[in-house]
């Protein structure tokens, strides 16, 4: 007779093996290594929770300590490869195969290990893709997750950094997998139930909070005049004419500058209430002045941000919060929101080629994608209209009848023509291609494909690629805002002039912007302390960002 519940039986066996190292659901930190060796099996598909923000750091360290003779050939399926331990397990032979999405701080090491063949790479995903595959062909056998606290039944409170946890648990627990959570402490009653206890099989009280990286904090003190100029161009040349109300921002200084110009420059342009009202965005501290000035109606978040907890709690009209008052974030939902209900994504990148393809990959660093390609793409499944979406669609396809015309999401790349150390933003050939050849990848790691990009903003102006009718025009529009880079100096001056007359290129003077007005005094906050004060002392920045 055919067995139809082998997965459940397997989970039962794992729970029994694990229980020998636990008291009820509680596992002591000191027993963690033995525990993991008991519940894991060679070849298991494992999700070790970690993204660009929160980390199940105690579980990661314990996993890196298991005996490779007992536990080996694991297949890691996780959002972030961020902690050193995430790669140590490959070096030690505990894990072999990797499907992931993002690797910020480990970008250089992961590249070396891929070149060295120490990691068998499945694919580099976007967040949504990886989440999707959790439910189709990459379902974890074991999920090692992180929460703030648990009760004796295993009910979990994830606090403001809920992020990936519900998605991982959903996929694992309902498909016969085992869920192990690290928490700071076990309490009598959790402030709110983010993950019901019957989906959680074991809990480790780590005695300290899980690690969170303040990735979305940008110090206004570091914003340059050129970044202010690009921000002015974006506000006056894109936000205003398209009337962008629903949007997502990247994490760079250019978009931080936009956030800080809304209450000053944006106010003077009379844009309050007309743009930037609804966001899919982490709680950026640089958004505080705009929120306080009444620009923002609501914000849904992928994750939280260190130090913003009290501010969010006090602004529940703006943020999504639980009955306990703290933020409820959810990466899968917010990514979906960013993809389907935002009319604009704007962010910066490291390299853009002549067709507008962009990549953050350099030959020696593989940072992965995270959610940027989800945000920075036009969702073909979208059906609801909005003014900016329709306007962009009309610019792209003026000849298609209106009722049959798809709209377009605005996907904007913003940056200075030269980056750090005078490295040009614009290149003839992306280093991502070199990398793909070296690693024999089927796909080059392109962050945003050129056909999704609608605009490129630099200090020299805005290129509107929607108005470009062919490859040549597209190339010249890009050269036309590429400044003094080799790409920029290689422009066809006459063609650039024609594009400018058509509005496919708009210079600061075409928009009535004097570059000399790009002054730091335009920033609504010029320091982290200004942000703290603007928040009514509710924002508590992390120590490395303080200067008081």
């Amino acid at each position, binding site marked *: 007779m055919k067995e139809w519940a082998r997965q459940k039986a397997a989970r039962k066996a794992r729970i029994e093996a694990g229980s020998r190292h636990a008291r009820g659901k509680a596992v002591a930190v000191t027993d963690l290594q033995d525990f993991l060796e008991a519940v894991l099996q060679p070849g298991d598909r494992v999700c070790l929770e970690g993204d660009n923000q929160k980390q199940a750091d105690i579980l990661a360290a314990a996993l890196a300590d298991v005996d490779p003779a007992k536990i080996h050939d694991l297949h890691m399926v996780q959002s972030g490869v961020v902690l050193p331990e995430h790669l140590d397990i490959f070096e030690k032979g505990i894990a072999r195969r990797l499907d992931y999405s993002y690797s910020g701080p480990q970008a250089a090491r992961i590249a070396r290990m891929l070149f060295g063949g120490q990691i068998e790479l499945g694919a580099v995903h976007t967040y949504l893709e990886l989440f999707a595959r959790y439910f189709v062909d990459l379902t974890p056998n074991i999920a090692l997750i992180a929460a703030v606290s648990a009760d004796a039944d295993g009910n979990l409170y994830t606090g403001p950094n809920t992020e990936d946890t519900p998605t991982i648990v959903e996929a694992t627990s309902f498909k016969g997998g085992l869920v192990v959570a690290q928490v700071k402490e076990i309490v009598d009653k959790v402030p709110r139930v983010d993950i019901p206890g019957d989906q959680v099989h074991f809990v480790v009280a780590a005695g300290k909070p899980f690690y969170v990286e303040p990735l979305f904090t940008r110090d206004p003190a570091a914003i340059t005049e050129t970044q202010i100029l690009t921000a002015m161009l974006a506000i006056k040349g894109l936000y205003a004419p398209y009337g962008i109300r629903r949007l997502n921002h990247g994490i760079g200084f250019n978009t931080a500058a936009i956030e800080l110009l809304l209450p000053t420059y944006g106010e003077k*342009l009379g844009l309050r209430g007309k743009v930037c009202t609804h966001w899919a965005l982490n709680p950026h501290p640089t958004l505080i002045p705009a929120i306080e000035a009444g620009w923002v109606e609501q914000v849904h978040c992928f994750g939280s941000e260190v130090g913003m907890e009290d501010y969010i709690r006090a602004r529940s009209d703006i943020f999504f919060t639980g009955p306990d008052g703290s933020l409820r974030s959810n990466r899968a939902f917010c990514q979906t929101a960013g993809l389907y209900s935002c009319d604009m994504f704007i962010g910066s990148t490291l390299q853009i080629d002549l067709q507008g393809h962009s990549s953050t990959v350099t030959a020696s660093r593989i940072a992965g994608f995270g959610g940027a390609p989800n945000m920075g793409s036009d969702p073909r499944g979208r059906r609801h209209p909005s003014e900016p979406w329709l306007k962009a669609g009309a610019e792209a396809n003026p000849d298609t009848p209106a009722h049959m015309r798809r709209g377009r999401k605005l996907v904007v790349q913003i940056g200075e023509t030269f980056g750090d150390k005078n490295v040009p933003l614009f290149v003839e050939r992306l280093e991502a291609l070199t990398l793909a050849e070296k690693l024999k990848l089927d796909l080059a790691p392109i962050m945003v494909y050129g056909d999704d990009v609608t605009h490129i903003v630099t200090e020299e102006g805005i290129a509107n690629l929607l108005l470009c009718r062919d490859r040549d025009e597209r190339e010249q529009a890009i050269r036309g805002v590429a400044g003094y880079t080799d790409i920029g100096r290689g422009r066809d001056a006459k063609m650039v002039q024609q594009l400018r007359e058509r509005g496919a290129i708009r210079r600061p003077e075409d928009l009535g912007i004097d570059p000399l007005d790009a002054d730091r005094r335009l920033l609504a906050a010029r320091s982290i302390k200004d942000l703290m*004060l603007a928040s009514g002392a509710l924002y508590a920045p992390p120590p490395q960002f303080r200067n008081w």
Partner: protein
Amino acid sequence: MSALLTETEDKPQTAWDDAASWYEASARQRVRSLLDAGSFKEFIGPEQREVSPHLRVFELPEQFDDGMIVGRGRLSGEPAFIAAQEGRFMGGAFGEVHGAKLTGLLRAARYVKSIPVLILFDTGGVRLQEANAGELAIAEIMRALIEARMAGVKVVGLIGGRAGCYGGGGLIAGCCSALAVSEQGRISVSGPEVIETNRGVEEFDSKDRALVWRTMGGKHRRLLGGADAFTSDTIQSFRDIALHLIRSAPGFGMDVLKAEQARLGERLERFSSCADALDIWKAEGVPDAEAVPAMPAEDFIAVANKVREPRYDAR
């Protein structure tokens, strides 16, 4: 253009200049905005190109004023000599030309007697590439400063720039008739990294920025008596406080030195065993000492004035 765009003027308002940040301003902007409009006359301006003769040896770019601006102008109608360091050029450090300009200014002030000197500090200390000249320049400035004070000149130091007031700059500041400092302004001899390098991270964690500020920052200096006045970070408030200090600063002589000896001695007696600035503030009776770092300038000034009156006779 879109219908969404209303016809508003979008040039930055010049009225913001009053609220312009001292910390963010260049040395030239500080000088121009601090003094009465149009009154500044520079001595040996950048067009003279009197650059450092030593930076070339190190393949380093020069600045036409060597990071030190000196001249005269008017403050509320009254004449004033002024010197300002550019904290972003070589960290505002003292080199040969940089220092000599201030020396010359102080020597002139001593001769004139009646015109006060404002020193807008913004310095990491001695410029290493010309370390001997810089060290000596500081010694010469200190002597010229004290001689000027003996002659009756008020010398007021203003501290609130990016580089703070470190190394020999801290010693010169300690010679001034009076000092005003903002929160951002740090006064110290050894910098955080120097202490950490020499004594280890257990002694001083230079990356703990809250620690750096509460040990060396403007609020602590004001509460300790190392600065006479605390000011918010606007050029206007620095101007106001400079005017006040020129009027209230003491002369110089044996009485002042004896009073300073007593003031510093008393400080050692009271706070010698304090391990942290917080302990000092608590010992001084600051209510809610933990709240001091985050406190807005106005609130802090009120607290500081209650706890410790400035002692103008002991510097």
